[in-house]
């Protein structure tokens, strides 16, 4: 039973990684760029939701909606000011800019909201489903996170494969130059990708802080890195891969802590990552594509 309890803890941690990883992988899949500021957009979303719910007594779901709107605009502004001027620059320059944006957001949050940690009110309470006479418990927030992951995954996949805008996104991802020649507005498409990614970040922020309720300007940074790892694990660019990678990363982390050593858990997680990448260099569900030179 303890084993199953650990497994459920792993799933709940993993579901949080998964929902963050979805945003990472979506932006990478389309814009071919690692948006290291994703974790910090999550933090901004969580703060907006915190202020709406805890200070101004919004309905939690309205709070999340407001956070999504703010983050979407934030994503568009960041993309416009920081990434768009670098569209023709080498990808390394964009990567460094993303790190800069990440620091900028963190330090702005420090100025605006100070470093004192805040306790986030859970958006759906702290209850749990009890199974087997209470031997196992699955918290509501875990269930909600997994449902949210699945819904986002399905909607994103449908959006990208079925709609015209989705088709434009896939075209940009394959070849920007050719897409432009076909009459696709590449700039607008990439901006749209960032807008969607940032909106997802707000949802992830609200769920992250509902599950682990302390909120600081650095709240998003480390889960962001872990989620990036999860995205690579599952195959970066692949949406189901991000989900699978996130869940597996969470479960491996908890099992490593429980059965190997709580001191070495991160080392074990990354050792598994290395092994997976040695066997499947594109990640679990990634497609290996030949880079054209």
């Amino acid at each position: 039973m303890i084993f199953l309890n650990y497994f459920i803890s792993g799933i709940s941690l993993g579901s949080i990684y998964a929902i963050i990883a979805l945003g990472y992988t979506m932006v990478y899949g389309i814009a071919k760029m690692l948006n290291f500021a994703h974790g910090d957009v999550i933090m901004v979303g969580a703060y907006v939701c915190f202020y709406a719910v805890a200070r101004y007594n919004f309905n939690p779901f309205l709070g999340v909606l407001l956070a999504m709107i703010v983050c979407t605009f934030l994503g568009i502004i960041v993309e416009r000011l920081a990434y768009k001027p670098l569209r023709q620059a080498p990808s390394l320059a964009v990567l460094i800019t993303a790190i800069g944006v990440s620091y900028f957001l963190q330090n702005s949050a420090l100025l605006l909201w100070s470093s004192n940690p805040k306790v986030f009110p859970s958006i759906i309470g702290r209850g749990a489903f009890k199974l087997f006479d209470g031997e196992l418990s699955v918290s509501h927030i875990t269930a909600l996170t997994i449902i949210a992951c699945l819904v986002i995954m399905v909607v994103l996949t449908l959006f990208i494969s079925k709609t015209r805008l989705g088709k434009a996104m896939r075209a940009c991802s394959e070849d920007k130059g050719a897409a432009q020649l076909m009459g696709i507005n590449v700039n607008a498409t990439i901006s749209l990708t960032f807008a969607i990614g940032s909106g997802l970040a707000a949802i992830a922020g609200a769920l992250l802080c509902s599950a682990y309720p302390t909120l600081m300007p650095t709240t998003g940074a480390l889960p962001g890195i872990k989620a990036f790892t999860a995205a690579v694990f599952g195959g970066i660019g692949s949406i189901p891969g991000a989900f699978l990678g996130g869940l597996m990363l969470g479960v491996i982390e908890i099992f490593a802590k429980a059965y190997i050593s709580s001191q070495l858990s991160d080392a074990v997680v990354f050792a598994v990552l290395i092994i997976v990448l040695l066997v499947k260099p594109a990640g679990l569900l990634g497609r290996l594509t030949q880079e054209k030179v």
Partner: protein
Amino acid sequence: MTKKILTCTILVLAMASCAFGAAFKIGGTGPLTGGAAIYGTAAMRGAQIAVDEINAMNTGITFELRYEDDTHDAEKAVNAYNALKDWGMQVSLGSVTSKPCEATAAENFADRIFALTPSASSAAVTDGKDNVFQMCFVDPNQGSASAQYIADKKFAKKVAVIWKNDDVYSKGIRDTFVEKAPSLGLEVVSETTFADGNDNDFSVQLTDAQKNGAELVFLPMYYQPASLILAQAQAMGYAPKWFGVDGMDGILTMEGFDKSLAEGVMLLTPFNADAKDEKTVKFVAEYQKRFNEVPNQFAADGYDCVYAYCQALTQAKATPDMSAEDLCGKMIEQFTTMTFNGVTGENVKWAKNGEVTKDPKGMVIKDGAYVGLD
């Protein structure tokens, strides 16, 4: 423009103090901006209140206090220290946080400027330096004091420890706690760790403590992860006794924190803002009047440092025209022999290596407020 005005004010102040020739120049560095700013500003404010009180008291000792910002960065702390040295600092308050203080303490030692840090608690701050002293407990002592306290009060026989293995503060306390526990009849049945990056989920650590039958969980860490641990333990239905150290101070002031989670949490801390003794009441009232908040332990440490200096300088019959080096010798002599009573403890004494001994105060959180255990 503000800078100019500031410089002018400082110049005028400096001239004024020269004219009277009666003020000791006391300087310190601390994080006044950035992520650790709450600690630095609190210590500075506490020290400033003490300076103003002493200057108004007409004891023959007056101080001129100057704090420089080090943003909790060792390199900036050394620059800040040099600025203070140029200003003519005679005795120093070291730095507020441990890492920067390790750097400035080395400068204090080389320059023979006496230092008494309010709150830099790592052992490396005072190690090998005869003129650097601490007002707060050195980290390892908190571990042994906690073990002693738990054993004396018979809170538990089986104890679990959860500590942060990438943090010198947490590790220092854990090391001496685990070392001391067996000799006091405490059995450490579960010992688990976490680190930056996996400090969200504590289900494994708590399950381990629970299945090994720990009656008390010792938490040598800051209050932010502790608040997560308390929430997750409650969700699991695990309710051991909780015991923390001074890093736990602050948990009740977290915005949005459900105070009922911390009900019954015990901690060892040198300062209790709710204490009813005359000194504490006066200090807390003044601090609240000026800054509209309850002072924390850092503010109290800063306040005590200045009073300790006042006592030592009076006893040594020191005068402000003495050089920093002369004062350093006198201060070493005084601090290793004197006994000080302050808001962070009675019968405070210092060892030759700069470590402080004072009785730690056991506190318990009751109805959302600290109450003394003794």
